């Protein structure tokens, strides 16, 4: 799958250097032409604000057990009700945004950076290095996430950082492949040769000359990945391989009691699910619009 879009994107990049405008201008264009993208961006910004000001906008400590008010339906005091240990679901969702966004952004940033550097280097050096590197990437890309997560959790223990590690592993190769095939085109442009002729070092050529030119496909990847990382974190937490109690995390909130008691206490199961959906939805809307803008072949035919 990645292979398809990566090759096609690479071709596109090479054909139309107009897409190499600075990213903030592209964002402005997006806002004007892409209401969907704007909707996505608004959701994302709201989520971020909610996460930053979690302590201001929540009435309760998300970790506070209250055994007198277990599984209270939504009312004036508890907007989204309480869970089985009497914790305020709304407060836990807001704080859960912190966990989700922290995991999403960190994983996308670290994974993206590694993917970018590795992908460009692989294209730049080529030859045996590239061949070997591609095989390693294939292995990691094809490898089932559950096994990776289980191993990471069992060896390093549970915790947010380790969840991030497990999520990054399959992302790096995917990102590296997309970046690599764009970079392969760029390597052939004479100015790289010129840079080499000037005697610039490998690091400088990779970071200063090649990397900026693969930004478009890279940004599309990374944006989509924030959403995916949030979803993956939720799934892993749901499977018991992610964040652990009592940390507020959406996937965790959907697990166990939330499912078993979903019928008589639907609020425990519904709100965290909506939170995940909305967050991932926001990032995907945004990413989809970004793709439309950055990929020139998809622009309006009129």
């Amino acid at each position, binding site marked *: 799958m990645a292979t*398809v879009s990566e090759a096609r994107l690479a071709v596109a990049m090479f054909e139309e250097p107009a897409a190499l405008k600075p990213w903030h201008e592209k964002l402005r264009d997006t806002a004007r032409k892409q209401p969907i993208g704007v909707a996505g961006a608004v959701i994302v910004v709201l989520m971020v604000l909610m996460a930053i000001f979690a302590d201001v906008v929540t009435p309760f400590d998300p970790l506070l057990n209250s055994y007198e008010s277990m599984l209270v339906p939504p009312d004036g005091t508890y907007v989204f009700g309480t869970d089985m240990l009497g914790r305020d679901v709304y407060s836990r969702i807001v704080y859960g945004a912190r966990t989700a966004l922290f995991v999403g952004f960190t994983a996308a940033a670290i994974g993206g950076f590694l993917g970018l550097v590795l992908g460009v280097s692989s294209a730049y050096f080529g030859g045996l290095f590239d061949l070997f590197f591609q095989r390693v990437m*294939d292995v990691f890309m094809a490898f089932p996430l559950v096994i990776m997560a289980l191993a990471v959790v069992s060896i390093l223990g549970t915790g947010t950082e380790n969840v991030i590690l497990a999520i990054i592993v399959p992302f790096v190769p995917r990102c590296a492949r997309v970046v690599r095939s764009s970079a392969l085109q760029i390597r052939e442009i004479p100015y790289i040769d010129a840079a080499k002729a000037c005697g610039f070092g490998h690091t400088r050529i990779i970071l200063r000359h090649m990397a900026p030119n693969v930004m478009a496909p890279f940004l599309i990847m990374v944006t989509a990945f924030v959403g995916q990382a949030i979803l993956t974190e939720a799934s892993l937490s749901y499977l018991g391989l992610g964040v652990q109690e009592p940390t507020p995390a959406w996937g965790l909130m*959907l697990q166990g009691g939330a499912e078993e008691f979903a019928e008589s206490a639907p609020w425990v199961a*519904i709100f965290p699910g909506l939170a995940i959906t909305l967050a*991932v939805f926001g990032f995907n809307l945004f990413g*989809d619009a970004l793709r439309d803008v950055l990929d020139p072949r998809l622009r309006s035919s009129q």
Partner: protein
Amino acid sequence: MYKYVVKRLLLLIPTLLGAAVLVFLLLRAVPGNVCELRLGGGGEWVDPAALEQCQIQLGLKDPMHVQLYDFLTNFFTFNFGESMWTGRPVAFEIALRFELSLQIAIMATLVSILVAIPLGTISAIKQNTWIDYVVRTISIAGIAIPSFWLGIIIILGLLITTQAYLGTPWMPPIDYRPLWEDPGYNLSMLIWPAVATGYRYSAVATRMTRSALLEVLREDYVRTARAKGLLEKMIINRHALRNSLLPVVTIIGIEFAFLMGGLVVTEQVFNLNGIGKLFVESVGNQDYVMTQSLVMLVVTIFVLVNLVVDILYAVLDPRIRYS
């Protein structure tokens, strides 16, 4: 071209080897083993001597390099061994669940096609109108909804609505019967996970249909057709859609291949005894032999599908050339 295919095929070997070593090491890096789970997993008292005995029997006390060597030689000679949990051949355990996974994969793919092609087409034709936005929103929502959550909501919804309207609560069957034995029973069980999964998978295909169609609509021959005054409907049906199907078919093919690898979460929620559930259970049981085989199955599907796609594109898209 021929040389390229041979080269890519040869390159599969190091990839598979790498995956094999990786899964081998990762599984053994996880503390514990199948014997402890088997003998003491229920919380009952365990005899340490029995534990030792079990480990010896399953070869868990052999030196690491011996275990690795056995695994690799067996894998490359297609001898998958026996499950450490049930003692039955791995091939038998997988074959047993294959039928169900295959049926779900087919049904989900059908759902996905039925959703993706019309929606993608409308979305492309009406690009940047509210219809386009609505379609894209629906399709993106499909990727955004966590599959485990969707499953819970579906079952809960069925129980509540049937009780409210029919008087007795109804839920899908929890044990599988083959399609040819009891079609009604079979479909009433599998339709729900198929719809949930198909909807999710249709998102990517919808987007692909849309962008492929948009691209084709810009081609010269479409402009010519328009210039000739052909009806827009005809242009879409006769020329554009047909020519833009390749990437869509490819995407759907890839998705089908991955569906075959099992649906880890959905199968749990709907209590389906498929490859995904087997995978989760064998990981949980620390059944190395079974897990290794399943991981290698998934990895092999993945690399083969990628290879086929790359070759297809090399053949069909003149802009892509492989050295």
